[in-house]
């Protein structure tokens, strides 16, 4: 039996009636058309589906949409502010932190939480902080540099 949910995504309120088994990532992608959040493994290993749920980075492929009832969600599409890239998006662009781009939305979201919690992370802390996100293209070094760029930029604008 379908259940009514109300979720705020990227600042907009959405109401829907969904099956209890509907995955949050499918809700975002298929019902809301927010296809920037990707699915890479379905087992919460790769982190391609990472979103912010009430400020916490979570993997939306292993959560039901009904569990997000009442939550505030930010997806990659909601990260830029009035057309201005988030420093983390800028960092990934500047430092060539992406190649095929498939892991990138989840990686960027996870990295924003990382620098929220630790505004001046060491390279080791960045690598540890991104352990839940897999990238097969970049070898991560440029991603580490991207996060450093974003941390510096964020600190400079505060």
């Amino acid at each position, binding site marked *: 039996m379908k259940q009514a949910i109300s979720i705020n995504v990227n600042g907009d309120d959405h109401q829907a009636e969904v099956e209890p088994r509907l995955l949050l990532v499918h809700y975002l992608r298929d019902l809301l058309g927010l296809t920037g959040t990707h699915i890479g493994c379905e*087992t919460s290993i790769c982190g391609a589906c990472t979103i912010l749920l009430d400020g916490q980075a979570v993997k939306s492929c292993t959560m039901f949409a009904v569990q997000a009832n009442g939550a505030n969600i930010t997806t990659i599409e909601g990260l830029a502010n009035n057309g201005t890239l988030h420093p983390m998006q800028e960092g990934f662009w500047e430092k*060539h932190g992406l190649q095929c781009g498939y892991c990138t939305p989840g990686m960027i979201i996870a990295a924003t939480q990382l620098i929220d919690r630790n505004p001046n992370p060491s390279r080791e802390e960045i690598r540890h902080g991104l352990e839940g996100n897999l990238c097969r293209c970049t070898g991560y070094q440029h991603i580490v540099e991207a996060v450093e760029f974003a941390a510096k930029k964020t600190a400079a604008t505060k």
Partner: protein
Amino acid sequence: MSKYVGQRVKRTEDPRLIKGLAHYVDDVRLPDTLHVAFVRSIYAHAKINGIDITEAVKAPGVVAVYTGKDIATKVGPVPCAAALPGLKVPDYRVLAQDKVLFVGHPIAAVVATDRYLARDAVDLIAVDYEELPAVVDVEASAKGGPVIHEQFGNNIAYTLTSGEGDIDEAMNSADHIIKQRMVHQRLAPIAMEGRGVLARYFPGEEELTLWSSTQIPHLMRTQVALMIGLGEHKLRVITPEVGGGFGSKLNVYAEEALLGWISIQLGKPVKWIESRRENMQATIHGRAQIGTVEVGCKNDGTLTGLRYNVFADLGAYHQLLTPAIPTLTGLMLSGAYRIPAIQMNVTGVFTNKMSTDAYRGAGRPEATYVVERAMDIVAAELKMDPVAVRRKNFPAANEFPFHTATGLDYDSGDYEAALARALEISGYATLREDQTKARAEGKIIGIGMSSYVEICALGPSQAMPAGGWESATVRIEPTGKVTVMTGASPHGQGQETSFAQIAADELGVDLHDVTVIHGDTAIVQYGIGTFGSRATAVGGTAVLIAIQKLKEKAAKIAAHVLQGETATLSFEDGRYSLPAGAPASDTGSSDPVVPVAEAPAGALPEPETEGRKSLTIQEIALIAHIAKELPPDTEPGLSVTYFFEPKNFTFPFGTHICVVEIDKETGETKFLRYVAVDDCGKVINPLLVDGQIHGGIVQSIGQALYEEVVYDEQGQLVTGELMDYAIPRASQLPWFELDRTETPTPVNPLGVKGVGEAGTIGATPAIVNAIVDALSPYGVKHLDMPVRPENVWRLING
């Protein structure tokens, strides 16, 4: 004129990717799309006595169910393009007929209105299997036992001997012969985006469009058209954003043809998005060779010969290039060395597993591993430094083109230069001193190196199954914007940027005035695709030469309009100019052309040409399209298509050096240093080259330390998810210290050799050599990959 080429230009494709606005296959949404889910074999080897779909067809949302019977005479077999003498090619139907031959073998396709309902109905299909003994071990399978394809009588798909020189004489003349068995374990490519297909048939137009996550849109279009009996001109393949390939999407898969055929049957769009489990089971694997190498050498380290006897685990069927991959191993067995005689004897063997095929490096990592491990074993045997043994056998820089006993002619190289640079950056002499001290303190430290050569820019058409050229169309539009269309179809490499760099420099226009279009067979002229480190060396060259030809025409128009001579016009910063002191084309205005924005609505701006001493190539494009001031017998428009056929492969090279420390308590390997000096010829974009090297090395680290596709003795896939198949994480990796030497290739005018696979080819032996070096005090001479902590711990504590 290099404003962009050679610069660390940020990628033009990135904004859409970092904003989450790009479109991968599953992001393409069409109304009324039906979803496909597959019933796949749960056994490695079984007879199918029956398939009961009664319940499934009645299930909610189910539109159709197809089994092997439905497609038997309708859809042709999955193609194999490899041609080898005596090769046995089994009939590989897109849905299993009376037998299943590997776990994941598709048996039935369920079509439903929703992906959840399609998946539900899969569970309602009952397959009556009669299990047969599985053939898993490649060496045992070659010797005898159960036969997978009964019509062939045994499991040997082919045998092949390659190489030049008298190998027996070479071994007889050696002072020492070292011999080592080596396992190149089966790997999974793991593109982060799995495969996916969206098919839409237009019944009125009788046209089919396939969106597929592939590296080869044009080759796929040709093959799928043949498989489903549709005219090739009625099939359009669109490759949207592709989330990584690494060779796994250099193929034509059952699902691509089947989805097209289903869409034709139902007259509606149908979509299938591969799950990770399906990706592990039914997307090609790589490597999977077990071989024994013998190397003969003199007392001073001079190599006399190399023999490699190898069993290649092909899996149950041939995918596009399956049997050809080990032949690439044979080609590269000379490595970076002068070896007078080389012989490879390969036995390609069927097993009840997924097919192997091209995974990043495709046969060359195996060769490099064999040669570079052997060099260290030779060094240990002769008690020489590994550096000295390598130097002893390098051809000198002035010996190129260098002919190898594998039948190749290496284009250009300076192996000593790359080695010397790597030794310098790593501080090799000091590293050895530090190692001695650390060992005295009880630490387990190892230093490993690899001096690799790879074969890239695939390649001359003579050596390729379906053409080795690449194509480009370059068009300057009436408004001066530049459209480049490339047949190379990228999947993360950044060719929209690097090809735009080439074009912008050659045309003297702004980078952002250039757009690079790829991956749509209805728009882009035929092309081969992106694989084999070929896109820039072959496809980039096609862009360059197309522009040069386009400029010949532009110069003629410029000379005509400016009333000068083509030969005396200069071209700089995108502008054709009369020689200094020459009179202007006529008296009058020297105002620039009216910008488009100021032109009357609906009309093209009239180019102002009177009194001009120079014209930009973008202005000439407008003149060429308006076609009122063209020289006699000149075609209007400004567009050139060029197909570039390379005369040879290219041979990038380099030296990697790494330092590892083994944790005595856990057996874990930790990197202390990683230095890579690569030579990929001329570099278009150093930022992108660094990224390719980083990513390649990390896939090597994955092979050396973590990754292995494991089938158990029943042929069950043990590593069926990313929970069980370990690809490297950020925290497991060192900081890579990169540098380059630059030896241009004479094979193409860009001087570019290619870099996509260098890291995956060069790094693996450096890592294993370092681990073996670390453990040499424990009597270790060789270790097979992945070097698991458990094995190392047992060696130390055993």
